[in-house]
């Protein structure tokens, strides 16, 4: 199974993420790592403190990906805590429970308003799953 990876695709106004992993759990964790880096805007970050549990439920796996990312955005803005390391504890097509470690920031993150449903796809690819999601920034 190939290791998970992500890359950024050019977009006129927003930010588009492409992510691939061998499983849904791996895909969600990799997307979370990518978002953490985006929220930090290139800053180095060492996670500190106790891990937090994040749990989301959705109507399908595409919505699960969007809801998961929006939960990370919400916590970054309200708690000033940017999740960067993830351990997926439970994952199904409509439910995710993960343990996350993150970095506290005194200046809340710039940029990301929301993960959107636009052009959203989670598709079977050789050896795993690939997803695309656009962030409003």
């Amino acid at each position, binding site marked *: 199974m190939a290791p998970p990876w992500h890359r950024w695709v050019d977009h006129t106004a927003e930010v588009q993420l492409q992510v691939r992993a061998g499983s849904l759990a791996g895909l969600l964790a990799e997307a979370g790592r990518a978002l953490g880096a985006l929220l930090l805007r290139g800053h180095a970050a060492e996670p500190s403190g106790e891990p937090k549990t994040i749990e989301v439920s959705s109507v399908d796996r595409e919505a699960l990906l969007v809801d998961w990312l929006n939960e990370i955005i919400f916590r970054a803005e309200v708690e000033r805590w*940017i999740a960067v390391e993830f351990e997926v504890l439970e994952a199904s097509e409509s439910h995710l429970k993960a343990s996350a470690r993150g970095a506290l920031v005194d200046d809340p993150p710039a940029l990301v308003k929301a993960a*959107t449903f636009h052009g959203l796809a989670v598709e079977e690819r050789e050896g795993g799953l690939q997803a695309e999601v656009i962030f409003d920034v």
Partner: protein
Amino acid sequence: MSRKNRKQTPRTLPRPQAPKAPPPSYPSVRLNPNLVEVPVTARDDMRVPARVWADEELWKQISRDRTLHQLINVSTLPGIAGTAQAMPDAHEGYGFPVGGVAAFRARDGVISPGGVGYDINCGVRLLASEVTADELGHSRLEAIVHDLSRAIPSGMGRGSHLHFTDGDFDRVLAEGCTYLAERGLATAEDLDSIEAHGSLPAADPRAVSERAKQRGGGQLGSIGSGNHFVEVQRVETLFDLAAAEALGLRAGQVVILVHTGSRGLGHQVCTDYVRAMDAVMARHEIHLPDRELACAPFESPEGQKYFGAMCAAANFAFSNRQAITYAMREVFQRALGDHGRLHLVYDVAHNMAKLERHGDEDLVVHRKGATRAFGPSHPETPARYKGIGQPVLIPGSMGTASYALVGTDEGFNLSFGSTCHGAGRAMSRTAAKKVQSGAEVRKALEDRGIVVRCASAGELAEEAPHAYKDVDRVVDVVHHAGLARKVARLVPLGVIKG
């Protein structure tokens, strides 16, 4: 990230590593020098034609990305009336294109959170000072811009100097600027110069989630990041002396333009309701080409609940710009004493869904990156602008010109009383940074005598003027098309960015 090492690394977006697939092409016909139409037969699922207000050059730019594809997706939504439209500053967004206008029949059409966008009631406010740029002088300008940057919090989550109890906060959502006037933060004259008096009566704070209130709770009176800014400007050119006089504008005058919206509160309202509508569309037998177009019948419980929440977020945004105005007035009066008064010219939204009467029909007019532009005889045009037209405020990209225009009666029929909202992005953020670094952008602005206060070099590079379309060309299209009439061109003296 530890707090101490936060400033040691660059603030930039990730570099894209993959090219994007080219946009699909559609047949089109040019109806006049400023308008192109895609016929309703261009795609099987279109319900109405799609129209783009653009001259040849802007049409070329708009055709490069997926703007047209997204506009055609909008034309498939239930209950859409007339035509789906894009303004000359339109560009690819998510779901609806940015610069899009779509009107849906209230009786059998839909309302879509994605048709308003995440920054509900993002909008612009223009204030006129009592001094000219020459009277102010560069050193006092520099001091004022500096003080403004300290008085107005910026950045994504940076908070407000104002403190409200939970009950107060619900009154901001329910009553908007009317409540701020009660608190001494707005005058009666201010209320007369804000779209809908800064208070949408359909607002329902109970429809706004606790998460949204948490996210926006400390942000009243702050700019935010991205393309939001406060600019101190000079009135450079007057195109219509009578209209300029009515707006209180004169050559050389110092004016201040504020561009911001509903901050984290609006972002979360949109997030909540895209999710909620995505889950109920099957029940309403709505099938869409893109999930971000998630919508519900306007008259359904889901549609009405979103409308109430959106109006509450819009009241928050009007109040946000009013709170910023209060802080700016304190700065100007400290610096200039009796000559430091700031008069509100107008405040208008460019991300909003409004229930409006058009002909014999009540329509829910979605403007996403499009400005309402009502003419001289429209009942909602403020009394002081009757016979002139509602002021339309078009911010250019950072460091370029902005415009004050007025709406026309003709435009009400042509574009549901709508016009452009800015220059419109032409280049991705990453591409913009390849052209010029943040330091180079800052130096280029300062070389022109513009005072710049922006904490993030990355954001300066991403919002550089070359990343946007030519605002003069965009405004010329809406002027010549009759959607709005040019009154004044404004050029920057000082820029404050999140």
